[in-house]
C-alpha cells in the first residue's frame, strides 16, 4: 500500500521549471530518501506534498485518495530545511502552540508535548525561552514539534544539520522507531552517508527531473562497475594482465576493474594458476555518493553545488 503517489507533478516559477514531470510512490512504513543537489527542486516538491504550493499540473494521492491539503495536513509533519521558532516564546508553550495549529485540542496537545519532552529529556526546558537554547537543543525541539501530532507521514528536510553526533543518534533512533510503529518518513538531504544508513528507497532529482528511483541495493547493482577487491600479497608482475585493470595496489590487497568479457571464475582461475594465495575476494559496489556525483555531473551544464556541504 502506498501512502503517497505523485503523478507527473509540475511546477514552474517565472523563469525556470522547478519541478518538471516527476512521478514516484512511497510505501507505507518505509524510510524514503529524496536526494538531489542544491536547487534541484526538492524543497518545491516537498512544499507541494505539504500543501504549501499547488502543483501547476499532475496529481498527488495521499492514502490512495486525492490529496486535499486542509484535511490531510493533520497527518503530515513537516520539518523544513529553513526552520525557526519564535525566539521570545517559552518552549513548552511554543510546542503546544504548534501542536494546536495542527488541529489538536488543548488537552491532547499538552499530553503529547509532555510525553515527548520526557522521552527526549527536555522537561526542565519547559519555561526556558527559545532564544536561550543552543542550536542543537532548538533542533531537537524542532524535531519534537514536527512529530507531536502523531503524523503518519513525516517529512524531514536535512534533519541532522547542526546536530552533534550524540543528538544526531538520538534522532536517528527515533526515526527508526517511528518507522517501526508504522509512520512513513521522507528524508530529504544531500548527505549520502546518512541516506545509505537510514533509507530503504530513494529518488534522486536534479534540475527538476527525476534521475533515479528505487531500492538502494538494486541501484547499487545497476551502477556497479565490475570492481573487485582481492586480499592477497601480490607483486607488480603478478598483476600484469589484459583481463583486468589495476585501480589501487596496496600491501596486502589490490582493487581491480574487470574487463566486461571476463567472468569471476576466469579471474580466480588466473590467480590460482599462478599459485597465489587468495585470502579474500569481493565485489566493490559503488557508494551512493559516487552514483550521485556521476549522475549529476553527467547531466548537461553542471550547476554550482556542493556535495558534502
Amino acid at each position: 500500500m502506498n501512502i503517497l503517489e505523485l503523478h507527473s507533478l509540475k511546477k514552474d516559477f517565472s523563469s525556470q521549471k522547478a519541478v518538471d514531470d516527476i512521478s514516484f510512490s512511497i510505501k507505507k512504513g518505509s524510510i524514503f530518501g529524496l536526494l538531489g543537489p542544491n536547487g534541484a527542486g526538492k524543497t518545491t516538491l516537498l512544499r507541494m506534498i505539504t500543501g504549501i504550493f499547488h502543483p501547476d499540473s499532475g496529481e498527488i494521492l495521499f492514502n490512495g485518495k486525492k490529496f486535499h491539503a486542509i484535511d490531510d495536513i493533520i497527518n503530515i509533519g513537516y520539518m523544513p530545511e529553513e526552520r525557526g521558532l519564535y525566539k521570545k516564546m517559552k518552549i513548552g508553550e511554543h510546542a503546544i502552540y504548534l501542536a494546536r495549529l495542527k488541529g489538536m485540542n488543548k488537552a491532547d496537545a499538552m499530553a503529547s508535548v509532555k510525553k515527548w519532552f520526557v522521552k527526549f529529556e527536555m522537561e526542565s526546558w519547559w519555561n526556558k525561552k527559545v532564544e536561550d537554547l543552543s542550536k542543537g537543543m532548538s533542533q531537537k525541539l524542532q524535531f519534537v514539534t514536527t512529530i507531536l501530532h502523531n503524523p503518519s507521514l513525516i517529512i524531514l528536510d536535512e534533519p541532522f544539520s547542526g546536530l552533534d553526533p550524540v543528538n544526531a543518534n538520538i534522532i536517528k533512533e527515533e526515526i527508526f522507531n517511528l518507522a517501526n510503529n508504522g509512520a512513513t518518513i521522507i528524508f530529504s538531504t544531500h548527505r549520502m552517508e546518512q541516506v545509505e544508513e537510514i533509507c530503504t528507497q530513494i529518488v534522486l532529482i536534479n534540475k527538476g527531473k527525476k534521475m533515479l528511483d528505487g531500492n538502494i541495493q538494486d541501484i547499487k547493482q545497476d551502477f556497479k562497475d565490475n570492481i573487485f577487491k582481492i586480499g592477497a600479497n601480490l607483486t607488480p608482475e603478478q598483476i600484469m594482465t589484459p583481463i583486468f585493470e589495476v585501480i589501487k595496489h596496496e600491501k596486502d590487497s589490490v582493487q581491480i576493474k574487470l574487463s566486461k568479457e571476463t567472468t569471476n571464475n576466469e579471474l580466480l582461475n588466473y590467480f590460482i594458476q599462478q599459485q597465489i594465495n587468495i585470502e579474500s575476494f569481493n565485489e566493490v559496489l559503488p557508494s551512493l555518493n559516487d552514483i550521485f556525483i556521476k549522475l549529476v555531473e553527467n547531466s548537461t551544464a553542471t550547476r554550482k553545488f556542493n556535495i558534502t556541504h
Partner: protein
Amino acid sequence: MNKISIILSREYFIRVKKKSFLLTTIGIPLIIMGFYAAIIYISLSGSDEKQKIAVIDEANLFGGKIDNHQSSIEFKFIKNETADSYIKKYKKDGYQSFLFISKDSSIKDKFQLHSSSSASLTTIESIESIINKTLRAKQLLLKGVDPEEFDRMTQEASITNTIDSEDGSKKSFAEISYAVSFGCGLLIYMMMVIYGTQVMRGVTEEKTNRIAEVIISSVKPFELMMGKILGIGAVGLTQFAIWIVLMILMQMSIPFIFPEFMHQVSNASSSSSENVTMLANTIQGLSSLPLTKIAGSFLFYFLGGYLTYASIFAAVGSVVSEDQQEAQQFVFPVLMPIILGFVIMTKAVNDPNSSLAIFGSIFPLTSPIVMMGRTTYDIPFWQIALSMLLLVASFLFFTWITGKIYRTGILMYGKKPSWKEMIKWAFTK
C-alpha cells in the same frame, strides 16, 4: 476559522503580557490625569496661601495704603528702615519678600522686590497689577475722575463661541470641540502607525527567523496573516478600552478627591480665579459633546483604518528581509497617505466643511484620520455613509490583494522583489 483564533490569541497575549504594554496603557492616562489633578490642585491651593509682603515706601507713592481686593497677597508698610537694613530682618518679621521704593522714584521707575528665593512669575504679576491699579486710581483721583467710573468705561469685550443644537438644549465650546477633534485624529493616526508597523515587524520576524514555513505547513498563509492582524488589532482595542475606563473612573473620582473644587465649579460664574473657570468650562464642554457618538465613530474608523493599513503593512513585511534600509524603501510609500491624512486633518479641524476636508474624510486611505478630525462637528449623513462604505470596501480589496502578495513573499528568500513582480503576484491567481 478555529486556527485563526489560535493564532490571534497567541499574538494577543504575547503582547498584552509585555511590561511595555502595561506601562503605556496605564502610564499614559495616569500621567495625563496627574497633570489634570496638578492643575486643579494648584488653582485651589493658590487662593489659600497668603503672601505677606512688606513695603518700604520712601517716596511715599502709595500714601501708606494699597487697595487690595484679592485676598491672596497682603501688604504691610514698614517705616524707618532702608533696603540694606531690612534685608536682615524681613524674614524674622514673617514676610516672604519686601518691596522697596527709593526716595526719588516715580511711577515710571522699576521697583525692587527683595526675596530670599526668586519670586514666581504669577506672584510678581499679581503684585504688579495690584500696585498699578492703586497707582492709577491715585492718578485718576488727582485728575478728578472716579476710578470705578473709569473701569466701567474701559471694559473690554470678550467672545466665547458656544455651539448650540437646534432645540437649544446642548451647549458646547468651540475650543473644546477643536481639541477633542484634533485629539481623536492624532490618536487614530498614532494607533494606525504604531500598530501597523507592529504587524509589519511581526511578519518580517516570522519570515526572517524562518518559522513562517513551519506554520504555513499547518495553516493557510491567509489565516496566519489574518490571525496576526486581528490579534494586534485586539491589543489596540484593549488599550483603547482600558483608556476609556480609566478616564471615566478618574472623571468620577474628581469630586471625591477635590470636593471644594466641584463646589467652586458650580458657582464658577463670577468670583473664582481664571484657572477654575477654564476647567469648569472644559468639564461642561466635554460633557456636552456627543461622547458616545465620538467613541463609536472612533471605534469604527480605528478598525477600518487599522485593518486596511495592517494588511498593506503585512504585505510589505512579507517582502522585505532583515535589512532595515530595504524595509524603509517599501514603508515610505505606505506611510505617505497616512501622513497626508494627518496633514489634511490639521486643516479639517479648523475648517471642517472645506472641500479638502470633505475629500479627505471620504477617500478611504485618509478618511479614518480626517473624519475623526471633523467628528465633533455636524457632518452630512451622505458623507458619513459614503466614507464608511468606501472604507469597508477598501479593507476588503486590500486584504484580498495583499493576501496574495503575502502568500508568495513570506516564502521568498534572497532577492528582493520589484514593484512589478509584487503587482504580478497580487493579480494572478
